[in-house]
């Protein structure tokens, strides 16, 4: 029981990651796949942020800048925050490029359902191959 209560952050991110993974695998709409990928990345970001938390600590902004020795137990771990800031930027970049690709797919095939696109591709008989 102890590993459920005191490690609840891991269970939360496992559930979120599995929701995203399910959406990426089983949905046939490409936008829903993209949303699943975002949920997956958010789960990883939550995991890293929760690793950096300390009991009895506050956000990593040094309150009294004239104190010579700063007690590191009073401030949270700043490293996961910085790394996840970078990860959020990468996430937004991948999301933007993916949405641009989806717009291009929609312009060409007039649909975003994966099976309909595959049907159109099969009926085209590949005119550009020879």
């Amino acid at each position, binding site marked *: 029981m102890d*590993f459920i209560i*005191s*490690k*609840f*952050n*891991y269970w939360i991110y496992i559930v979120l990651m599995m929701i995203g993974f399910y959406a990426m695998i089983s949905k046939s709409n490409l936008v829903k796949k993209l949303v699943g990928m975002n949920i997956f990345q958010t789960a990883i970001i939550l995991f890293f942020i*929760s*690793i*950096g*938390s*300390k*009991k*009895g*600590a506050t956000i*990593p*902004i*040094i*309150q009294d*800048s004239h104190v010579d*020795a*700063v007690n*590191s*137990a009073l*401030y949270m*771990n*700043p*490293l*996961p*925050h*910085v790394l996840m*800031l*970078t990860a959020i*930027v*990468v996430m*937004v*970049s*991948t999301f*933007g*490029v993916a949405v*641009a*690709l989806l*717009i*291009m797919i929609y312009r060409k095939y007039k649909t975003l359902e994966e099976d309909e696109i595959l049907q159109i591709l099969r009926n085209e008989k590949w005119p550009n191959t020879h």
Partner: protein
Amino acid sequence: MDMPDWGATDSPPNTHVSPRYIEKSIEETATPNVVTSLLADYRGYDTLGETTVIFTAGIVCILLLRRYR
């Protein structure tokens, strides 16, 4: 089950690298916000690569969405 508990002060990520950053940040960078000094000072090359990533993503979006006539 070997992962540290939530908020554990003695977990490996909270004991190895980050205390040095928290303790020396004021002295070395004169910035109260440790996240800022880490992002822009200690890991400046990481941030440079990050801006490269988002610049490339912007270029790709422009190239994809431009209509050819």
